[in-house]
């Protein structure tokens, strides 16, 4: 690829990313406007002793007495200046809050991803095209892993490894030991889905003529599976992994709650429940950004995995 072509591609990506982000912010803003009820009343919750004067003060301070159009323009203006605003409820800058909560979730997501992909690849490579009974057993295990709610898996793992065996701490995000159980919980359901998809891809690849050719050249069965078939089957795996990773950000909320971990999931839940507009939009922007980055990474990975895509 020539340099100007590369630059063009980069600019195109950036413009698309900006469009996605502003679209996400706008949609989030609109959705929040559609939620019924006075935003201050929702924020304060039922049975709050705040006097009408205090409610009026809050309404005014957050600009909620202005028209939605004005609020939107004001917000966009701040956003362009890189200011995500301040959380209504927590009274802290949204960027600080996200910054604080992001790292534990990233740790959790990455470690879970690592476990899930390793597990899925091992399981699928070992069972694809094997004895029907073995495949059926693996398939059942995957189905169970994929369909058990993370909440339930988490409680089971906690009961066994924390409450009974006392190997891992019950909760928190203070050290590596506290990361293991939540990551395994999250990884199990991911691995279930990924292994199913990967085995199907592997079996399709193993049925192709090049496999026979490779075997004829004297390669071992394992080498054929890992070096050749896996590569063919990897494209759907990568696509799906990317998509699942993006959803991990919010999807971690159950795991975070069960294990009492800080993180983006819990923050999102709190923000949405309390109609904390700046925080909700900040989080929506974050997750849009993650998806944009991930899809770029996936596109690049395609090129790495499949040489046919490189020649243009």
């Amino acid at each position: 690829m020539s340099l100007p072509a590369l630059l063009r591609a980069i600019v195109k990506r950036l413009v698309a990313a900006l469009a996605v982000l502003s679209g996400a912010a706008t949609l989030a803003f609109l959705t929040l406007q559609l939620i019924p009820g006075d935003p201050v009343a929702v924020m304060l919750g039922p049975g709050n002793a705040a006097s009408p004067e205090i409610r009026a003060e809050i309404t005014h301070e957050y600009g909620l007495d202005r028209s939605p159009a004005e609020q939107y323009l004001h917000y966009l203006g701040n956003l362009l200046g890189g200011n995500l605003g301040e959380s209504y409820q927590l009274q802290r800058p949204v960027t600080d809050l996200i910054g604080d909560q992001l790292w534990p979730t990233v740790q959790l997501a990455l470690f879970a991803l690592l476990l899930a992909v390793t597990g899925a690849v091992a399981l699928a490579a070992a069972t694809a095209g094997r004895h029907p009974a073995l495949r059926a057993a693996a398939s059942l295990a995957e189905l169970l892993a994929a369909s058990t709610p993370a909440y339930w898996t988490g409680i089971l793992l906690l009961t066994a490894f924390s409450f009974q065996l006392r190997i891992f701490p019950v909760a928190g995000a203070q050290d590596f030991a506290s990361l293991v159980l939540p990551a395994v919980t999250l990884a199990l359901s991911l691995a279930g889905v990924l292994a199913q998809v990967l085995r199907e891809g592997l079996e399709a690849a193993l049925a192709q003529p090049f496999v026979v050719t490779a075997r004829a050249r004297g390669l071992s069965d394992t080498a054929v599976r890992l070096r050749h078939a896996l590569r063919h089957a990897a494209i759907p795996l990568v696509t799906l992994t990317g998509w699942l990773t993006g959803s991990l950000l919010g999807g971690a909320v159950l795991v975070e709650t069960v294990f009492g971990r800080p993180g983006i999931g819990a923050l999102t839940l709190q923000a949405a429940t309390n109609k904390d507009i700046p925080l909700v939009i900040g989080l929506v922007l974050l997750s849009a950004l993650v998806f944009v980055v991930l899809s770029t990474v996936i596109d690049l990975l395609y090129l790495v995995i499949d040489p046919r895509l490189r020649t243009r």
Partner: protein
Amino acid sequence: MPVNRSRALVLAAAGSLFLGACSGAGDTDGAAAGATATPVSGGSLTYAVDTEPVSFDIHASPQDITGAIQRNVFDSLVHQDSKGEFHPWLATKWSASKDLKTYTFHLRDDVKFTDGTAFDAEAVKINFDRIVNKSTKSQYASSLLGPYTGTTVVDARTVEVHFSAPVASFLQAASTPYLGFYSPAAIKKYGSKLSAGGAAAVGTGPFEFTSYTKGQSVTLTRNPAYKWAPSTAAHTGPAYLDKLTIRFLSQDATRVGALTSGQVQVADPIPPADVKTVKANSQLQVLTTDAPGANYALVLNTTQKPLDDIRVRRAVLRGIDIDTAVKSVYFGVYKRAWGPISPTTPYYDKALENTWTYDPTLAAKSLDEAGWTGRDSDGYRTKSGKRLSIEWPLMPQEYIREQRDTLGQAIQADLKKLGIEIKRPRLDIGTYIAKVYGGQEGIADYSWARFDPDVLRLYFNSSSDPREGGQNATFYKDADLDKWTDQAQTTLDKNTRQDLYAKTQQRAIDLALEVPLYVRTAVVGVASDVHGLKTDPNTWANFYDTWIGK
């Protein structure tokens, strides 16, 4: 307060609870706990709670959990014991003017904030003025100050607090952490950032607020200079614990598991379903205590048909088998309620007990008298072709606690037997607030924690409009109820107050303004090597006297 995120989490008891020296010693009182073993200084303790504060600012937050945590960091002018009596704390003595519009406090002269600033009359003024300042956006403390007009600094050790109307409940208000004192230097430095807790939360209390990790924990460390505990405490000088960690474990299973596996030493609350298991564990003790304030109740809107008819309200009051419902939903852990306020609240009227037992026959007769004599094809009563139907909306699930939705099903079933239809549409929280607090629904359900009978004014005085931060969702205007609850605020005479508050409680039940359901009960699980754990009258665990044995 009625909901999850509000002042809901009631930690323990109205009384001062002390844990005995070991599990065998059981629930002895403070003196005995001190006598059975010698307290040792040092060690750290982890305390698991189910709610995380939204704001740590004691002057702004309405949450129970904020008060519960900050009680260990902030002191009050006076201390209130479990019987409702007041004792010196930051104030050595005090007096109220005859009209109860001015309170004078004489302050200790040796108290320092943990940042080194001296606690004096000016600090009191700065803090009280901050509470009523609009920009503080106080959701609770300002209502405790009520008709506050200002504080006068008489000299460095004397302050006068002024009100535009009599406030008999002010000493109680002053004893809560919500009217606690930040270092004036911290207020100046951090301003609105006080809500973030951490280093900004500079008080005079036995613990310093060291750090806060959102979503995970709060760490408090001992204040080594502390020597101004109220005289009711079991010891003087600094607290025993080096460090107190508060963990936020919102899931019941996780919190209980953490306690039973010894990873936390105190867990609060223990859900009723788990109480038996925890009690059976020899390594653990359970503290069960009634919370003060208004009981969880069905508040009947007297301005909506058909509950505007007292005969229908009385039928609802007598037509629910509360004993059975409460016992089965809460495994016998919570007691059923007999009046608007709980037995631990000062001036509770015991005479109401067993006066309005379950009586479906009487309830049916009352409905007959009200003209609801027809029956439709679904078995519900009708009058002139209209079904006897009452709407009692459900909040979104995340706001519902203590399995109140399950209890609601039992109530629905009992009333169906009488021919009353209870409709429970699930509303989003915005619509719920607008309709329930706007007086458009038949029934509202909530409780309100406060160790003061003034909650009766909040519940039944017609000026306590829910549209303006009040809690009188009965919307009933009664000259007597207004007079009595107002008068009780103008006198400190115990006999007069007893009389006024007893009449109020009886009249509320007599008019069937609400159906009291259960007494909110705090259940705390504690490891048996934890000694001297106390709760203050506002029901919060106080770790000042707590120490860890072998």
